[in-house]
C-alpha cells in the first residue's frame, strides 16, 4: 500500500473542498470496499478524507423538492437502515436488499452512500496482474474472452462487460430514490436510476459524479407504490455472496388483481442497476402470470446476446422476476397495512 495522508473532515463542505483540491484524494466512509482495494493495489489515492464521522447518520421524514420523503443520511450504516421500522414497513424492497448484502459484521460498517459507490467484483478488475479497462484505462478487457460467468447481459461495450454489485442500488431504483450530492458549487439531486453509467468507452467512470462530489443523503419519495415491494437475489451459495442476478419490484395492485402500476429493476445484468421499462410496459394493466412474465423479461432483453458462460442468467431472470412478482401480488398479511 502506498503512503497515505489521512484527514478527518469536520463537515461535508470541508470534505468536498479537501477532495476537490487534490486529484489523488478520495473519500473514506465505512471503508469495506476501499480498504480492501488499498491492500490489493486497485485504489492508489495519496490522501484519504474521512467522512465517517460527519453528522450524516440520521433517518427521518423530510420535505423534498417534489414532496414528502424519507431522508437517509449517507453515513447511515446498512444494518441500521435495514432495521429502521419505517423502512421495514414502507420500503420492504430496500430492507430486503440490505439484508441480502454481505454479512452481519459488514452491514454494521458499510454506509448508505458507500454502498452505492462500491466497485465491480469482476474478477479481472480485482486482479491487478490482468488487463482491465476499468482499473487501468486502455489496458484491455480480460473478461471479453476470459471467465465470463459474471458478465453483463445488457448495456456492455467492447471495453467492459462488468456488472455493478450493489443490492441496495437495485432496490433504490425500483422505489424511485434520489441521491443528494454536494459539490464545490453546491447541492444537486440525481435519481439513483441515473447515478451509475453504462461503460461505453470510459468504464473507469462508474457514476456521473465529478471528482470531489459527495453523496450526503438518499431520499425515498413517500408513495403507496413501495409498500408492495420486494427484492429477490440469486447467488452461488445461500448467503454472503454477490448476486448472480437480482430483482427488485414495487407494484400497485388494482382491485381486479391487475398491475395498476409497477417498477422492476434488475441487478447482476449490467454496469448499472437496470430499470426494466419495456418489461414494465408489457405487464402494466395485466395479471402477471408466468407466461406473461417470461414474455416481459424477453422483451426487456431484446437483442441482448448472452455468451455461453452467462446465458444461464436469462433463465434465472425469468424465474426471479416471476418469483418477485408472485410475492408482491399475494394478499398482504393481516395487520400489515400500517
Amino acid at each position, binding site marked *: 500500500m502506498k503512503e497515505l495522508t489521512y484527514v478527518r473532515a469536520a463537515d461535508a463542505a470541508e470534505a468536498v473542498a479537501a477532495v476537490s483540491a487534490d486529484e489523488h484524494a478520495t473519500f473514506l466512509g465505512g471503508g469495506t470496499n476501499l480498504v480492501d482495494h488499498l491492500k490489493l493495489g486497485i485504489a492508489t489515492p495519496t490522501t484519504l478524507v*474521512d467522512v465517517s464521522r460527519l453528522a450524516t447518520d440520521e433517518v427521518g421524514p423530510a420535505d423534498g423538492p417534489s414532496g414528502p420523503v424519507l431522508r437517509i443520511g449517507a453515513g447511515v450504516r446498512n444494518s441500521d437502515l435495514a*432495521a429502521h421500522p419505517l423502512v421495514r414497513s414502507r420500503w420492504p424492497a430496500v430492507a430486503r436488499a440490505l439484508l441480502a448484502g454481505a454479512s*452481519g*459484521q*459488514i452491514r454494521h460498517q458499510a454506509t448508505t452512500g458507500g454502498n452505492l459507490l462500491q466497485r465491480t467484483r469482476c474478477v479481472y478488475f480485482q486482479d491487478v496482474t490482468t488487463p482491465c479497462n476499468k482499473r487501468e484505462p486502455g489496458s484491455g478487457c480480460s473478461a471479453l474472452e476470459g471467465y465470463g460467468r459474471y458478465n453483463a447481459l445488457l448495456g456492455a461495450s467492447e471495453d467492459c462487460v462488468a456488472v455493478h454489485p450493489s443490492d441496495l442500488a437495485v432496490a433504490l431504483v425500483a422505489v424511485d430514490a434520489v441521491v443528494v450530492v454536494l459539490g464545490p458549487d453546491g447541492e444537486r439531486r440525481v435519481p439513483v436510476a441515473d447515478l451509475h453509467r453504462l461503460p461505453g468507452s470510459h468504464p473507469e467512470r462508474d457514476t456521473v459524479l465529478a471528482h470531489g462530489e459527495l453523496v450526503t443523503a438518499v431520499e425515498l419519495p413517500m408513495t403507496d407504490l413501495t409498500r408492495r415491494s420486494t427484492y429477490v437475489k440469486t447467488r452461488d451459495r445461500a*448467503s454472503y455472496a454477490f448476486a448472480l442476478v437480482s430483482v427488485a419490484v414495487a407494484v400497485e395492485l388494482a382491485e381486479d388483481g391487475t398491475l395498476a402500476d409497477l417498477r422492476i429493476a434488475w441487478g447482476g445484468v449490467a454496469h448499472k442497476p437496470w430499470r426494466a421499462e419495456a418489461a414494465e410496459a408489457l405487464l402494466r394493466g395485466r395479471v402477471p402470470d408466468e407466461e406473461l412474465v417470461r414474455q416481459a423479461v424477453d422483451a426487456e432483453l431484446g437483442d441482448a446476446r448472452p455468451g455461453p458462460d452467462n446465458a444461464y442468467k436469462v433463465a434465472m431472470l425469468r424465474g426471479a422476476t416471476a418469483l418477485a412478482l408472485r410475492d408482491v401480488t399475494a394478499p398482504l398479511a393481516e395487520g400489515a397495512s*400500517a
Partner: protein
Amino acid sequence: MDTTVRLTVDGTEHDVLVDTRTTLLDALRERVGATAPKKGCDHGQCGSCTVLLDGRRHLTCLALAVAHDGAEVVTADGLADGDDLHPVQQAFLDHEGYQCGYCTPGQVCSVVGMLREAEDGDASHVTEDLETEPDLSDEEIRERMSGNLCRCGAYAGILAATRQAAGQQGSEQGATA
C-alpha cells in the same frame, strides 16, 4: 504518516502509534498485543478478525486504525470475567464448536453480537415477516452467522452452542443439516 490513536481494548486504554495504513487488526495484534482476533483472509471474507467495536460485531481487517481513534474494542479474550467464561464461550466448550480453533474468537464475538441484534428484533435475510420479532430458528442462526467461515466444518457444534447461548431448545435434527 504516523498518528497516535487511543483504543480501549478489553477494558484497558492504549495510546498506540500507527502508520495511517495500519488496519485495526494489525494495531490490535502487533501494537496492543491483543491476539484473540485472528488474521485469516485479511479481505473481509472469513470473519476470524471479528471483535465487538463500540458494542457491535465488526471486522477489523477492513478498518483503518486511524479512522477508529477512541474506539472501544472487546475481543474474545475480554468477554470472560476472570476465570468465569462468558455464556457463549462456555457454550462453545460444551458443544465443541471448534476444531483447530483459529476461527473461534471471531465466531464467539460474532455470536455475542448477533444475539444482541436478535434481541433488538432485527430481521435477517431469511426472516419471513419484516414487521414481527424473528425467532432464532436454526435457519436464522445459520444466516446470521454466515459472515464467519470455519474450514474445519465445526458448524454443527457452533449452531448447537449458539442455540444454547440463546437459551433455546432447537431441534437436534437441524444441527446436522
